[in-house]
C-alpha cells in the first residue's frame, strides 16, 4: 500500500478548506473506494467464471458471446449487484463529501479567482470565456461521472465550484494515483512524447478538453518557451483552471471553445494533446475533433490523445464499461468498438496508430483491471 502522504493532494489557494468532519467524510470515501477496488471488484472475475457464466450457458444453451451477454449474466448475480450498488454509492458519496466544503467556501473561492484573473493577468496566461458558446448535448444530457451540474453548470456569477469539486474529487476517485497535483496524465503523455521525440521542443501547444488544467500544467512547465493554450466547453472549470494555474505560477491561455470547431487559425499548433477527453464526447464529435486537429496542426505537427483502454475479453470490456452504464460515461461503451486510427485517417492523417503505454499503480488505485495501460492515439500531420 502506498503511504497516505504520497497520496495527499498538495494544498493551494483554490482548494476549499474542509472542516474536521468534512475531511473525515472524504477520508472515508477514499478508504471505501480503495476497499472496493482492491478487495471487492476483483471478485467479479471468479464470480463470473464460476457462477454467472455457467448459469447463463445453462439458461441460453450457449456461452456468452460479447460484453452485452456478460452484462446480462452478471446483472443477475447477487455479488455483482452488491458490488455495483456500493460502487455507485461510493461515487455519489464522493461528490457529496466534496460539494459540502465547496459550497461553504464558495464566496472566498470566487473572490480569489476574480482577483487572480485581474491582478496577475498577462504575466500568468489568460482566461477568455464565451457566453454564447453552446455546450454540446453530450455534456448536458446527463451529468458526466455523476458530478451534479457536470463541468458546465454555473450555480452563481463567476462560479468556480465545478472546478474546485473536480480537483478534490479526482484525488479521491483514484486514491491519489494522479499525484499531489493531479498531474499524472499530463506527465504520462509528456513522458511518452519525450521518449519518442526527444529532439522536439514544441512552440505552440494546445490541450483539448482541459477541464481544470491539471494535465495541462506539466506541458507548460516542461516547455517554458512554448505558448500553451487549453480549451474546454465548461466555464466554471475554466475559471478554476486559470486561477489554479496562477496559484502554481504557470502561464497557460485558457479559453472556452468547442474542440470540434475552434476559432484558432489553420496551422496554429505544432503539438495538440488531450487527456481522457475523447470518450466523453460523441460519435460525430469524435470525427469533428480529429478533423479540427488536422486543420490546426502545422505540417509535421503531432497530435497525442491519451485514452483509457477498453479491455480485450468480453468480461474486461464489460467491466471497463461499468462506468458507461453506472457512472454516466455514456459514450464510453461506444468507444469500446470504435476504430480510432480509421477515424483519424478519414480526418486526413497518414499513419495514425494507437500505442499502448504501461504505468505502475497500487491495487487500491486500480480500476477494473490488475494492470494499468493507457492508449495513446498518435498521428503526425
Amino acid at each position: 500500500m502506498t503511504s497516505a502522504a504520497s497520496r495527499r493532494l498538495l494544498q493551494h489557494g483554490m482548494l476549499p478548506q474542509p472542516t474536521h468532519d468534512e475531511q473525515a467524510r472524504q477520508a472515508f470515501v477514499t478508504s471505501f473506494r480503495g476497499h472496493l477496488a482492491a478487495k471487492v471488484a476483483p471478485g467479479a472475475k471468479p464470480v463470473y467464471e464460476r457462477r454467472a457464466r455457467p448459469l447463463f450457458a445453462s439458461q441460453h444453451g450457449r456461452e456468452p458471446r460479447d460484453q452485452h451477454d456478460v452484462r446480462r449474466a452478471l446483472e443477475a448475480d447477487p455479488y455483482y449487484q452488491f458490488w455495483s450498488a456500493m460502487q455507485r454509492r461510493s461515487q455519489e458519496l464522493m461528490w457529496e463529501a466534496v460539494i459540502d466544503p465547496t459550497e461553504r467556501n464558495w464566496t472566498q473561492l470566487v473572490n480569489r479567482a476574480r482577483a487572480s484573473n485581474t491582478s496577475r493577468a498577462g504575466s500568468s496566461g489568460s482566461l477568455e470565456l464565451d457566453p454564447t458558446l453552446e455546450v454540446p448535448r453530450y455534456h448536458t444530457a446527463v451529468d458526466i461521472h455523476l458530478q451534479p451540474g457536470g463541468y458546465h453548470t454555473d450555480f452563481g456569477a463567476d462560479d468556480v465550484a465545478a472546478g474546485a469539486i473536480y480537483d478534490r474529487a479526482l484525488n479521491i476517485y483514484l486514491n491519489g494515483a494522479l499525484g499531489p497535483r493531479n498531474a499524472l496524465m499530463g506527465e504520462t503523455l509528456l513522458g511518452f512524447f519525450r521518449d519518442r521525440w526527444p529532439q522536439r521542443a514544441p512552440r505552440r501547444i494546445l490541450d483539448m478538453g482541459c477541464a481544470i488544467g491539471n494535465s495541462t500544467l506539466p506541458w507548460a512547465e516542461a516547455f517554458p518557451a512554448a505558448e500553451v493554450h487549453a480549451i474546454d466547453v465548461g466555464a466554471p472549470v475554466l475559471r478554476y483552471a486559470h486561477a489554479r494555474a496562477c496559484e502554481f505560477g504557470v502561464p497557460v491561455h485558457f479559453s472556452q471553445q468547442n474542440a470540434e470547431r475552434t476559432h484558432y487559425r489553420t496551422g496554429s499548433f505544432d503539438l495538440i494533446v488531450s487527456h481522457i477527453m475523447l470518450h466523453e464526447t460523441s460519435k460525430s464529435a469524435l470525427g469533428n475533433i480529429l478533423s479540427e486537429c488536422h486543420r490546426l496542426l502545422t505540417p509535421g505537427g503531432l497530435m497525442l490523445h491519451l485514452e483509457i483502454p477498453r479491455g480485450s475479453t468480453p468480461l474486461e470490456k464489460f467491466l471497463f464499461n461499468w462506468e458507461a452504464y453506472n457512472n454516466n460515461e455514456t459514450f464510453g461503451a461506444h468507444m469500446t468498438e470504435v476504430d480510432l486510427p480509421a477515424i483519424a485517417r478519414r480526418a486526413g492523417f497518414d499513419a495514425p496508430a494507437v500505442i499502448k503505454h504501461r504505468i505502475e499503480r497500487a491495487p487500491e488505485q486500480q480500476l477494473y483491471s490488475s494492470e494499468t495501460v493507457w492508449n495513446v492515439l498518435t498521428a503526425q500531420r
Partner: protein
Amino acid sequence: MKTRSKGKATASSQTTKARKTTGKRPKSAPEANATAPRLARVAKGKRPQYFSDPAIDKILWITLTLCEELSVTRDRLDTVERLLEKRRVLKVSDVEHYRPDDKTEALREQRRAVYIDRVLRAVSAELEELAGRAEAPPLEEVIAAVES
C-alpha cells in the same frame, strides 16, 4: 459561425474588494455565506436499479451513508482523545485501559439493551405481530372506526 463576443470573466468593480478579502487564507470554521448559491447534490441522469426490489437499493444507500457517518464520528473521537493527551488532560492509553466500575457497567448494559431493541425493532415488530399483541384490525375497519 460562432459569435466572438468574449471578454474577461471579471467585473472590475468587484475586484478591489475581492483582493482585500482574499489576501488571507479563508478560515476553515463553518461560516454562513449569504450570497453563496446552493450547489446541486444529485446528478442528472437515471439512477440504475441494482436489486429486484428498489427498496433494497434505498436501504443500501442509507446504510452506506450511516457507515460513513460512523467513520466520521470515530475520527472525531480519535481527534478528541489525541487533543486531550496533547493538553495533558488524559493519555490515550488511559482510554484503552479504562475499566468501568460495576455501577457504570450496569448503566451501560441498560443503555446497550435499549439501543439494540431500537435498532432491531424491524425484527421484533414481526414477532410482536405474530404474538397478537400488536395485531391490528384490517385498515378498512380502522377507517370505519374513525369515520363513524
